[in-house]
């Protein structure tokens, strides 16, 4: 038993276990956001671990594996963001939100940031005593 084989086996087993956990979560959760929680993060890390195992194991073609893993890492957050926004905006999707819909007041308002009070402008650096008279 080689040390390299041991490393490859551990990495591949971890990645495959993460993918299996993600699949079970996708099947068992009962809400689209809970399902997205299971379906977007765990397979990405599983693909990273499996790609690391392949990079250790393979003789050539490591660049292709690394490129595939990088593509997944770049595109998976964008895709899940798009799916989440689409699921929020689409009609007829059941959203089991626990604490109410805090985004609804922003989503309906075309100019949402007009209502938010602006932060008081502070010119002083902050460590100055506010009671002190201004230098003249």
């Amino acid at each position, binding site marked *: 038993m080689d040390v390299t084989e041991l490393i490859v086996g551990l990495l591949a087993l971890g990645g495959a276990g993460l*993918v299996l956990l993600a*699949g079970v979560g996708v099947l068992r959760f009962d809400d689209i956001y809970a399902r997205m929680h299971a379906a977007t993060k765990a397979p990405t890390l599983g693909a990273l671990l499996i790609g690391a195992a392949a990079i250790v194991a393979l003789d050539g073609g490591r660049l292709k594996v690394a490129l595939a893993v990088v593509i997944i890492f770049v595109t*998976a957050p964008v895709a899940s963001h798009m799916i989440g926004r689409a699921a929020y*905006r689409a*009609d007829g999707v059941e959203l089991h939100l626990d604490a109410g819909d805090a985004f609804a007041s922003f989503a309906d308002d075309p100019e949402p940031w007009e209502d938010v009070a602006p932060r008081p402008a502070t010119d002083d650096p902050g460590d100055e005593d506010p009671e002190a008279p201004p230098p003249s």
Partner: protein
Amino acid sequence: MALSAIGSLCFLLRAILGPSLPDRVMAVDGFVVTLVALIVLNAARTGNQWFLGVALVVAFVGFVGTLAGARFVERRGR
């Protein structure tokens, strides 16, 4: 390998019986990521590198397909 295949099948099952359209899009996205992982794992097991290009192309096409599906859901709903 078997673990990963079972997880991938779970994604496919959710894509088939997903109650709503965003569920299906999300499941297909996860299935594509899982498929890339399976191809890379197969290459690491057998040692041949013929299918690594396929993994690259599948990752790209899956991303574009997910974006198109999300756009479609956003326009049409349900």
